[in-house]
């Protein structure tokens, strides 16, 4: 398992270096990555949680519209569409970048060379930490070989690889780690007595909410899997509230209310969800771009029908994935802007991993089935890596991909 994680880290790091050394991507802190990160320099360089000082330095006093940081009507203060969770998890990397910046005499403004790559590498680090954590969860229920195969498939057979390298400053790598850690803490809560495990579960749950508010749904769906012990539930809830409190304080300071829709007037259309498009379209369909996740769906059915210890995760995972798909499909921009595959589902890949492990275990039991599945998986991984490279080199559109565009680019480099 260790060698798989080490190899995954080495491949991701090599890809990261390739992306930035060849100029395929301009800088790690860009697009959504800017607004996720902007809190870090605001806290540590300007000691100003209002974001106004960063706005003055980076942008002449006004954040440009693409940053999704808006002036709140009524107070005139800055409200960031993206919450503070990613910045909290990026914070440990910041002092190293700042010290090196001072040492080399680069501009200590939070956006020069070392800050950029500290944040780029932070996303990669949390992806690998997520794989390691997920591996620990899987090994409790499946063999080491199956667990390792699942980790390799999740990284190289889905868009996780892209969000670990090319777009590593986005929130998805962070949520991927946190979902894996959440599974780990739930599993640990049911295995070990005491209050340390529930406190850890509360911390992870709080960070999940801080990174992406709508992911609070995963906590609700998995609540029945938490041990029924009032003292431990209280500890987990108290830690969760403590972790989330700074975000509520920031919203209150900026708007006068602790809970707001930070996207302003942009929102959900729950009456007309684009379910089919979100799951199957060439534009951003989850299963169109990551077809191996269909094996995970089959694995959930296998797991549900078997007396397997991991079976208790099936109902919460499937309910969450269904609700999550509905919420994503109802968002005004159901494609989530430019992305490789549908980035909204990267967060939930650790849940898919459980189903995938069950499917691999089933396939492993009979050699002909094993060889057929191995062949299909290897082909799908090769296709995914090729399409990732096509996306990076602009051979595939960043959004609104049509079937004709996909067909024209299919397995073509020139």
């Amino acid at each position: 398992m260790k060698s798989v994680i080490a190899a995954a880290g080495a491949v991701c790091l090599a890809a990261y270096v390739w992306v930035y050394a060849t100029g395929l991507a301009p800088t790690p802190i860009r697009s959504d990555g800017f607004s996720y990160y902007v809190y870090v320099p605001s806290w540590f360089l300007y000691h100003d949680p209002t974001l106004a000082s960063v706005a003055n330095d980076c942008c002449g006093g006004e954040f440009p519209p693409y940053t999704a940081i808006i002036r709140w009507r009524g107070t005139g203060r800055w409200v960031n569409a993206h919450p503070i969770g990613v910045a909290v998890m990026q914070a440990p990397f910041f002092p190293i970048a700042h010290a090196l910046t001072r040492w080399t005499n680069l501009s200590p403004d939070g956006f020069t060379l070392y800050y950029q790559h500290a944040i780029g590498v932070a996303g990669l680090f949390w992806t690998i930490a997520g794989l390691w954590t997920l591996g620990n969860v899987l090994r409790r229920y499946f063999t080491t070989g199956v667990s390792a195969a699942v980790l390799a498939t999740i990284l190289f057979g889905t868009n996780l690889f892209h969000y670990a390298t090319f777009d590593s400053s986005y929130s998805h790598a962070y949520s991927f780690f946190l979902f894996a850690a959440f599974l780990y803490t739930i599993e640990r809560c049911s295995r070990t007595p005491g209050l340390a495990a529930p406190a850890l579960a509360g911390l992870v749950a709080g960070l999940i909410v801080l990174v992406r508010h709508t992911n609070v749904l995963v906590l609700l769906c998995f609540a029945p899997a938490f041990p029924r012990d009032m003292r431990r539930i209280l500890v987990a809830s108290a830690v969760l509230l403590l972790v989330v409190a700074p975000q509520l304080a920031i919203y209150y300071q900026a708007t006068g209310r602790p809970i707001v829709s930070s996207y302003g007037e942009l929102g959900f259309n729950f009456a007309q969800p684009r379910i089919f498009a979100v799951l199957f379209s060439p534009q951003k369909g989850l299963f169109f771009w990551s077809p191996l996740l269909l094996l995970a769906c089959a694995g959930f059915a296998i797991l549900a029908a078997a007396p397997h210890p991991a079976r208790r995760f099936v109902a919460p995972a499937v309910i969450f994935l269904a609700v999550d798909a509905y919420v994503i499909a109802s968002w005004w921009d159901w494609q989530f802007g430019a992305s490789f595959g549908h980035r909204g589902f990267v967060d939930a890949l650790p849940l898919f991993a459980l189903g995938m492990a069950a499917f691999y275990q089933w396939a492993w039991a009979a050699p002909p089935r094993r060889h057929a599945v191995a062949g299909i998986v290897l082909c799908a991984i090769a296709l995914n890596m090729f399409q990732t490279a096509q996306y990076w080199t602009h051979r595939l559109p960043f959004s609104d991909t049509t079937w004709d565009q996909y067909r024209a680019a299919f397995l073509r480099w020139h």
Partner: protein
Amino acid sequence: MGSISRSISAVALTRRAIAALVVAATAWALLAYLRDPPWLIAITSGMRPETMDASGRHYRWMGGHASLFVPSDARLVSIPLRTTFDAPADQPVTVSITIDDRPVDRIVLTDAQWRLSSFRLPPRGPRRVRRVDIRVDRTRDDNRGAAVGDVTTVRTP
């Protein structure tokens, strides 16, 4: 058996000490290199890719803050600057320039013409390059603060 295990732990300790020494030496060498790296002169931040105006002048748009490096043996530095005045309500833009965080010039762009910020550099320090930071007090649409032309330097003979 006791002496064997002692000798194994001694080997392990020696290996760890060597590994720690190698890590420390590598870190020291890396830090020494990063103190004054030769590629720093080519580093800029806060600026977009180069473009050209109708008269053939090359320039780059900066946002609210940009930085670049000049050779430390430069005596005089000149930076051409301009901004746009597309709307009647567009306010003048004040540009502040610092060298290694010390203020050296401040000019106000009141029309769309190119203006030249020229300033003398303090005596050279121990490094190969000096950092120039350019800041504006406001930006136009799309976070365009000022257009920065080709920076020229006059070096110490």
